[in-house]
């Protein structure tokens, strides 16, 4: 099992969710995060005060999937979240040792 973690542009969240649902991924955790990559930040001006804001708002999504599902998941996220502009985000794949559904106690593949 793997955790597929993706940092995406906030306005792409609904498209990514639809793409994941279409390939049979039925669970998703979303967090509002800030960060920077190659996109860098922007400048904010309040009267005489100018601030270089380097952390931009992004959405982090995390999905737990069976290992053989990973390529399809990555493909779904990539195609849905891509604009071709700098700042589209990144996908990280992380090993997942164990998963349990709290309500039933089911474990691992059955819990996903």
């Amino acid at each position: 099992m793997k955790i597929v973690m993706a940092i995406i542009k906030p306005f792409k969240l609904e498209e990514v969710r639809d793409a994941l649902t279409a390939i049979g991924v039925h669970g998703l955790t979303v967090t509002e995060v800030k960060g920077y990559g190659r996109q860098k930040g922007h400048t904010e001006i309040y009267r005489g005060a100018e601030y270089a804001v380097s952390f931009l708002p992004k959405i982090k999504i995390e999905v737990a999937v069976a290992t053989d599902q990973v390529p399809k998941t990555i493909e779904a996220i990539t195609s849905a979240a891509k604009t071709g502009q700098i700042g589209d985000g990144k996908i990280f794949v992380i090993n997942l040792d164990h998963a349990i559904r709290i309500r039933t106690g089911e474990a691992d593949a059955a819990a996903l």
Partner: protein
Amino acid sequence: MKFKRSHSAGLVALAAGLFAASAAYAEPTINKGDNAWMLSATVLVLLMTIPGLALFYGGLVRTKNMLSVLMQVFYTVCIVIILWAVYGYSLAFTGGSDFFGGFSKAFLSGVTPDSKASTFSVDANISELVYVCFQMTFAAITPALIVGAFAERMKFSAVALFIPLWATLVYFPIAHMVWYWAGPDAISDAVKAIAAAGSDAAAKAAAEAKLAEVSADAGWVYKKGAIDFAGGTVVHINAGIAGLVGALIIGKRIGYGKDLMAPHSLTMSMIGASLLWVGWFGFNAGSNLEATGGAALAMTNSFVATAAAALSWMFAEWMTKGHPSVLGAISGAVAGLVAVTPAAGYAGPMGAIVLGLVVGVVCLFFVTVVKNAMGYDDSLDVFGVHCIGGIIGAIGTGILVNPVLGGTGIMDYTTGKIAEYEFGAQLVSQIWGVCTTLVWSGVGSAIIYKIVDVVVGLRVNVEAEREGLDITEHTERAYNM
């Protein structure tokens, strides 16, 4: 508040003829229409401060200090209302010296529902209690304006001590100096008495002495001939310079110029600025004290100067920084309201538009270029908007009152006519008003800050400042979401 030019013997003689026919003095009456307008104007001025100013300022600070600003403004209103009733009104609006009134109306003694207060017309009075309350709201907003200069770092106990001291030692005297005078009825009665004396030399001399005495019964700045319709000097220059002195004495916020100190809610600030604009009609048109065309002129000017200043700030920022900002537009509106305050009942509408266009650009220059060059941390630009805007308004009023430029001219109550306008003399008078306020408030405020620093300490400690004043001073958070 309008002004009567000091009389000259020749004009008095002329006036004597005018009033000769009516030797019997009518008892002034309270006009219900004027009274109703002043009751309404009074609550509009309260609306300016709470929630208007509180939200305007509150939106401009960081989330962690929102409540501290709301609390400081709300506290200021409440404490000054009490001081005003106990001795403030008496100190500001009774005769005494050129600089302070007396204590004859302390505890509002003798002020009853039947008491009358003069307006700017002979024989048209309003209830003195409504005048007490109207002026009370001015006394309340002025120290509340200062709060913006030392926002996000002052101890609440320091604010709690500073505000009553400042109101007592700075506001009440300045209000007395600029606005206190004997009133049109007293002047008119004295002029009538001279006429009634006829050829009786002794009676005439006594009556002339009475007129001289009545004319001398006024504040220092008033007698210098400075005109300030609704408080450009008393409210804005006064609070603005006190704010600058405070920002210099208390020092910069931790992380100033380095950390992100963006306003936490420009939405709140926009609501606050708009409430300020609405309430300001009570402030400016109410300062006419009568529901006449003069009030309508003040209202018109408060519309057009404000809009002009918002636009000039916005376009100037667009041209120099590349973007028009909401904060710029609302800051410009406030600057326009500040500048039109002394001019509201004196300038013509086209003059007011020019005043607004000028003040928007000049205040933008002060809060960006000058503030950054000087390096002081006036958190919410009390100096750059209120003091600078107030000075432009005070000087501008001296120019725009000129009937040639569409202004109203200045009433001479000894003749009952508009006095001849003299550019140089009026400008000198206005500069007296500006400088007296700058010096009195600047020095007085510095002394008061030092006293407060010794007694309770001005500034919260470093940890509290980082944590935010809401939790450390008030044990609350603005938003539990």
